């Protein structure tokens, strides 16, 4: 089944960074019934004085991995400004002016290290278990930003572990990630096409292709809106997906309107979710909601 949520604050230049982390956790907790296998979020517009925020994990008992990571990053001339690591999950802030793909490959190639995200102002945190567990382990509720997306997963297409949890970062494109409710039927053919173009896939989950597709199209010059429009023609299967970039969020719904999405919007905030109950967890008053139909998409920028 799965549940997707998203939120964006429109006036943070005037009001300062908003409590996006807290909103995301409240919305995900209210959608717990749509999946408890794993839960994850992307928060965008977070404060960052370095070039890139890297979220990574070290799998298993790999005591050398942290040291190897530090050495690897230094070897390409990058400088670590901040480093934090606990219970297998790590975050580093890095100054690095060369190609971000090289930074991503350097980290991902270290034995036992998995890269969850690299972003200029966004980070992905995902873990097995429900939203309350995610918040207890990673203190998401305290993170401030301008926008974000989130996902609760009931696994159908691939295995249950942190790697196969949403959101999926569009490796190695900074800040682009996707959460998806549905199944893609042309995943394997699309994946082969993008592999032939040189893209590295981090998982065997069909949803990962959406973020890679969108990132590649944006990289080639399309706007977020245009890339999403194109995805409606390219993706086959059932989907409601949300995408987060460095400055906005967007959604698309498949041509059967098979998966739900409802939206509430005020002058300063937009919230989107699989179900209205999630919207009511962050909007105190029952304001009007809007339900997109088949083959519809929309974007909002901060």
């Amino acid at each position: 089944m799965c549940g997707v949520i998203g939120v964006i604050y429109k006036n943070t230049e005037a009001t300062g960074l908003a409590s996006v982390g807290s909103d995301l956790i409240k919305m995900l907790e209210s959608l717990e019934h749509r999946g408890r296998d794993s839960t994850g979020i992307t928060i965008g517009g977070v404060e960052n004085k370095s070039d890139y925020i890297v979220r990574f994990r070290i799998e298993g008992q790999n005591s050398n991995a942290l040291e190897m990571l530090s050495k690897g990053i230094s070897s390409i001339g990058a400088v670590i400004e901040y480093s934090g690591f606990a219970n297998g999950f790590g975050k580093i802030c890095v100054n690095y002016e060369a190609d971000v793909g090289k930074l991503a490959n350097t980290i991902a190639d270290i034995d036992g290290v998995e890269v969850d995200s690299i972003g200029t102002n966004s980070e992905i945190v995902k873990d097995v278990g429900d939203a309350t567990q995610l918040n207890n382990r990673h203190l998401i509720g305290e993170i401030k930003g301008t926008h974000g997306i989130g996902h609760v997963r009931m696994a159908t297409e691939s295995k249950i572990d942190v790697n196969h949890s949403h959101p999926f970062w569009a490796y190695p494109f900074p800040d682009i990630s996707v959460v998806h409710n549905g199944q893609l039927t042309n995943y394997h053919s699309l994946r082969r096409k993008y592999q032939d173009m040189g893209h590295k896939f981090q998982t065997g989950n069909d949803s990962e292709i959406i973020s890679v597709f969108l990132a590649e199209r944006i990289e080639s010059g399309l706007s977020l809106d245009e890339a999403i429009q194109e995805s409606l023609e390219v993706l086959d299967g059932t989907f409601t997906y949300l995408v987060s970039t460095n400055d906005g969020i967007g959604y698309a719904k498949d041509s059967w309107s098979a998966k739900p999405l409802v939206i509430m919007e005020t002058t300063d905030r937009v919230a989107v979710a699989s179900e209205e109950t999630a919207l009511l967890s962050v909007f105190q008053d029952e304001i009007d909601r809007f339900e997109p139909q088949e083959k519809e998409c929309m974007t909002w920028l901060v």
Partner: protein
Amino acid sequence: MHDLVSIDASKLSTRQINVRLTELIGARKDIEIINPKARHNIIVGILDKCNITVRGSLGYYCASLLDGPSIVVEGNSGWALGENLMSGNIAISKDTGASVGASMRGGNICVGRNAGARAGISMKGGSLVIGGDSGFLTGFMMQKGQIIVCGDVGDAVGDSMYEGEIYVGGDIASLGNDAVIVDITKKELISVWNKLEENGIDKQPEFKKIVSGKKLYHFDKLERLEKSSV
């Protein structure tokens, strides 16, 4: 008019809400539900006449498996409001998600504003009135009854319908497989207007009528009883 008793949904589990409803209906009370917060599976399996008002939005599969109640919802609903309604009345003031009135067999459902995809899917009787627009595959595989959409309908309206009628006041994005537009008689138009009036919707002058073209009917094998009559 019976005494009005309030149920605060925020203090009860889904099962407790439905058990409490059954108790109050047995005691012949009128009921209001407050703080529903778009939760699922509220008001299900009620087979008595009663009056229930919901102050707020409902989630999925609410007001379903009903035979007799009169329900007013002041808000929206998620998927499949009024699924398998046998008799009674459901009036919702705002929008509904997909599959409103799925497999309904009787009674009346009125959506104040817009309905999502597959409104009236496989309906087998009764009336589904939609004040605003209706989404993709409205009336998909319907077998009996009527759907009235005052606004526009999405693609593939009436796809694979067997019987029944769909009346559309606004634009039709496209007809589904074997759905055809036929002339509407004055008598039918008046009956549509009356139905709208019963549901408190201002009548509009014109409606298009959609029925099954019956080209998908291929019953070339006879049933046992039919064979004996040939």
